[in-house]
């Protein structure tokens, strides 16, 4: 246990040391745009929410209300082609508190579906949530509720 704690402390210290130089030479990550991939032609056509997705990565039954124990799936449908594009999904709660932010790099070729999912073993707090997805300069949002 002590050895594990020491290892964790060393890693944490090393991470701080490692990160200290970046801010000197460049802007903070907090101010940077998260979608910088060259994906000009790739656009979001729609965003679907539901409790599960099929093999085609599309939500099988769309819905916008969930229970605290649900795994919440979002399917981001895109059009366009690019050697690389980054799809970013940002989940927020009520006043904007970030629940989770994920991204996935893809090489889309025409219509594609990219799914993101989140779960919370201890249960979702009841309330209003928002999912905002973006790829390149294309952004869409979807509201949903946990009841």
């Amino acid at each position, binding site marked *: 246990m002590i050895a594990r704690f020491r290892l964790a402390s060393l890693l944490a210290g090393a991470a701080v040391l490692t*990160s200290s130089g*970046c801010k000197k030479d460049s802007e903070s990550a907090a101010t940077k745009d998260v979608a910088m991939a060259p994906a000009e032609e790739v656009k979001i056509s729609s965003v679907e929410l539901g409790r599960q997705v099929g093999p085609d990565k599309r939500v099988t039954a769309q819905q916008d209300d969930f229970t605290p124990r649900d795994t919440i799936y979002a399917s981001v449908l895109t059009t366009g082609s690019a050697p690389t594009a980054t799809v970013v999904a940002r989940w927020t709660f009520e006043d904007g508190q970030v629940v989770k932010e994920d*991204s996935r790099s893809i090489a889309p070729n025409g219509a594609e579906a990219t*799914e993101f999912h989140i779960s919370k073993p201890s249960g979702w707090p009841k309330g209003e949530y928002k999912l905002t997805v973006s790829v390149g300069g294309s952004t869409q949002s979807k509201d949903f509720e946990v009841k």
Partner: protein
Amino acid sequence: MPSNRPKPDFSDVESGSSSTAPRPSTPASERSYTVRKGDSLSKIAKREYGDAQQWRRIYEANRETIENPDLIYPGQVIRIPE
């Protein structure tokens, strides 16, 4: 009226993703680099490209493994695009 309800804890949220689209292919001209103590993306960019501002190139090539560009770890293997 402002709510007095404490902010919920989302630290245990688990997530994942998948896509019908393939992952971007790795250019043959990329190579790997093992992060050393004291490194930052800008320092690596300065050393590799002679320009610290090129750290974005490295960050973009490693978006799947670097969540926060200000946090890289000794021993972490990253890709250096040519």
